[in-house]
């Protein structure tokens, strides 16, 4: 068997408390302890999993259980406190499509800038340009400023650029609501094809249908701990029982 493309072992990640250390705290040499505002809280505790090349891995769980933190760790924009995160290959993310776009610039100008931000050389972007525009279905609108675009058009352009950047792993955070239904289907089809061509997907979503149709394996996070991992239908089943248990708890609390 090939070594996995993503290996995560004994991963722990904490965040600083909500209060920042400003110049006041610095000058007064105050390191407050008691009220917990300055203590670090654990976002992820002891997570281990691995993903093979050509697999599609789904991550489910409630809001604020560390799913996005985990994606950031895979991307490498933050580092773990403890443990190992190893990704052997180039990672690209579909986190917040088009977040780096500037409204005053045209689609074309944003395309070149964003391609470069994602690690493409100008030559690569030039070569992929026609394909990117064709996939985004923007046509002549590519030379209009982004501020004239609809939200769907922006997302379409963002998606098209990311998938044309060379990447062995694609991270996807709730962004499959790209444009209308038809375009969404096109994106899904593209991603499934990407997996068939030995690409690797990591998908975070609340939409169980998407997860079920796109992933083959996955895991469920709850309050920063890994509660289940395995085949995707079992993961979803587990998540459903977790949800029911939680809503019963809330119902009891209300009574």
């Amino acid at each position: 068997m090939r070594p996995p493309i993503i290996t995560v072992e004994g991963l722990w990640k904490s965040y600083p408390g909500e209060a920042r250390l400003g110049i006041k705290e610095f000058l007064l040499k105050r390191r407050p302890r008691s009220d917990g505002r300055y203590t670090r809280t654990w976002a992820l505790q002891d997570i281990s999993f691995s993903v093979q090349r050509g697999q599609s891995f789904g991550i489910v769980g409630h809001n604020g259980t560390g799913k996005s933190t985990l994606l950031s760790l895979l991307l490498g924009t933050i580092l773990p406190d403890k443990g190992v995160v190893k990704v052997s290959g180039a990672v690209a993310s579909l986190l917040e499509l088009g977040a780096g776009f500037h409204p005053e610039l045209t689609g074309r100008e944003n395309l070149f800038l964003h391609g470069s931000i994602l690690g493409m050389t100008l030559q690569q972007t030039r070569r992929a340009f026609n394909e990117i525009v064709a996939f985004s279905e923007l046509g002549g609108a590519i030379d209009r400023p982004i501020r004239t675009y609809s939200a769907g058009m922006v997302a379409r352009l963002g998606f098209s650029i990311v998938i044309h950047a060379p990447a062995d792993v694609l991270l996807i955070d709730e962004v499959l609501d790209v444009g209308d239904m038809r375009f969404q289907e096109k994106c899904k089809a593209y991603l499934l094809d990407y997996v068939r061509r030995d690409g690797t997907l990591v998908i975070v979503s609340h939409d169980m249908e998407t997860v079920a149709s796109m992933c083959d394996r996955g895991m469920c996070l709850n309050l920063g701990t890994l509660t289940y991992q395995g085949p995707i239908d079992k993961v979803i089943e587990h998540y459903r029982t977790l949800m029911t248990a939680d809503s019963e708890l809330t119902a009891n609390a209300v009574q």
Partner: protein
Amino acid sequence: MKVRQNLELLYLLVLKDLKIRYKNSALGYLWALANPFAFAFVYWVAFKWIMRVEMENYSIFLITGLFPWLWLSNGVIQATRSYQNNATLVKKVKLWRPILPLSSVVQEMAHFLCTLPVIVAFLLITVQPMHLSWTWQVPLMILVQLLFTYSLASLLALANVFVHDVEYLVGIGFSLLFFATPMVYPLSMVPENYRIWFQMSPLHALVNSWREIMLHGRLDFSSAAYVMLSATLVGLISYRFYRKSSHRIGELL
């Protein structure tokens, strides 16, 4: 490969900022000159015409110091906020982060380059000699100032991620330093026993180097070397700070 890719990114980032600034303005590039000119004019009125500073070629003296100063202060002030302004890029994309403050500094350098012909025009108007030695002195001095500005900018940008107050301190700091540096008055007007303190400032050395080059075609070696030394020192501090704490940028923004 990585270096080339980052150079391309730097070029695109600077181009983006310049385009955004001037895209919808009728005068475009002329605005790049309007700002330094307005400053120069205000100081000229205040100090030459009203306060009557006794000095030959005061306008030349003023702009040869003021234009490099604006590159330094605007570049550093903008760069200090660069991580915050690009928070989504920092958090959502894996990129070589020092490129963000660097692009602020290079963008202001582009504005400075726009003002260089104006300095030359002023020299021509006031019948000052041109110097062939500029061909190597000016590029060299640009490089020295680029290094100095960037080391300072990268240090303050990183510090601002940890303590937000830095950006306010930087703004106030440059306003104070402007008058604590012989910018609108010559060093010779400073009382003799205080002069040494003014001379110790690397900012004075920087401005002084530019004036020596533009007015006399002479590279003041000790001044330029002093700026270089300060740049290296600040750069080293900045580098060590970055190595030690850059991994926290992503979670603090």
